């Protein structure tokens, strides 16, 4: 019975929204995505961490937008027509993440996601939940709960 339950868990598919960053595909749990926006005016916040682009007004609510490239240590890139701000909710906190583009919604079973390789990675890479192989390409699955540390979440909340 326990074996069956374990097997069911391994084959249970979760839906993910995929986005592109620096020519690579990343996936985040669809349940944490509230909406996807075109890039509009982002007001910078003086003194904010380097990965914080600023704040936007989302239907009367102030939402902090972070640059996914900077957060992941990738090269900066100017926003263009494909760029999107993905509004996500993590532990009751709503933030936006700027990505190069949003691709599609996919389904991944737990068994399809291999754990992230432990090879000289630092604390800031704990958000990489694993890697899935799809159609000959690799998709990096991101654990949004670990995108920022507890201290960073608190800092972003207080902007």
């Amino acid at each position, binding site marked *: 019975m326990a074996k069956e339950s374990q097997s069911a868990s391994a084959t249970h598919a979760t839906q993910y929204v995929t986005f592109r960053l620096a020519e*690579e595909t990343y996936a985040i749990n669809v349940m944490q995505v509230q909406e996807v926006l075109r890039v509009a005016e982002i007001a910078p916040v003086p003194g904010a961490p380097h990965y914080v682009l600023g704040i936007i007004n989302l239907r009367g609510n102030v939402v902090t937008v972070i640059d996914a490239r900077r957060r*992941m*240590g*990738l090269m900066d890139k100017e926003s263009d027509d494909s760029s999107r701000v993905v509004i996500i909710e993590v532990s009751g906190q709503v933030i936006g993440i700027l990505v190069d583009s949003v691709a599609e919604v996919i389904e991944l079973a737990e068994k399809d996601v*291999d754990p*992230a*390789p*432990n*090879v*000289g*990675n*630092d604390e*800031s*890479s704990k958000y*990489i939940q694993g*890697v899935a*192989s799809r159609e*000959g*390409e*690799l998709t*990096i699955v991101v654990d949004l709960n670990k995108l920022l540390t507890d201290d960073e979440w608190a800092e972003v909340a207080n902007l």
Partner: protein
Amino acid sequence: MKERSQKTLVVEEQQALTAYLDGLLQEIALDEVDSEPTDVRVEAPPRVMTRAKLVSVPDVPPPVPAVQVASRQAMPPDWAHGAFQCLLFRLAGLPLSVPLIKLNGIMEMPEKITPMPGHSPLFMGLVNRHGRKVKVVDITQLVMPRDRIPERAPPRNLILIDDARWGLACDRVEETLTVTADQVRWRSAQGKRPWLAGTMIQHLCAILDVDYLASSLEDGNWG
């Protein structure tokens, strides 16, 4: 004039590599001195007579700190009794080899490597091979002092080890050599370079301790 300066550069690189290899030979000899009983006389390693040896040879570079991971296999290892084969390859110009018995395959360097953000720069990323993910690493900084690493062309081959879990990026694959255990100067258990199994003096080439290298990479305490 330009040609001459290029020749000088090539000679300097060769000198640096030869000096480094010579350092490996000397280090193994010193290890043997340290590990053997005091009554045993240890001969100095054979000197390699190349043009580079005629000029002043820099001091042996400081060894890469050994990480405390896997226990080290006694040398020579079980697979090295009698004749065995090694695949020779170049890493930043340095001739290295892996025993064929520890080799899982060779790949052309794929065009597409998926990098992992936040990881060591030595970790180049993942490659999809028959549905399995190969972790691609550039071990140059593990086996050579940073100030000795020459400018080089992009790696052309991947050497697959540890059940193809790891792909070692290299300049190029060269030939296969058949050697016997007594042609290799095996490192002692106290050696300061954990990745080194021994040195083939005749071929001026170091043999990687593949098992130790793979386990230390897996441990993640590198870079």
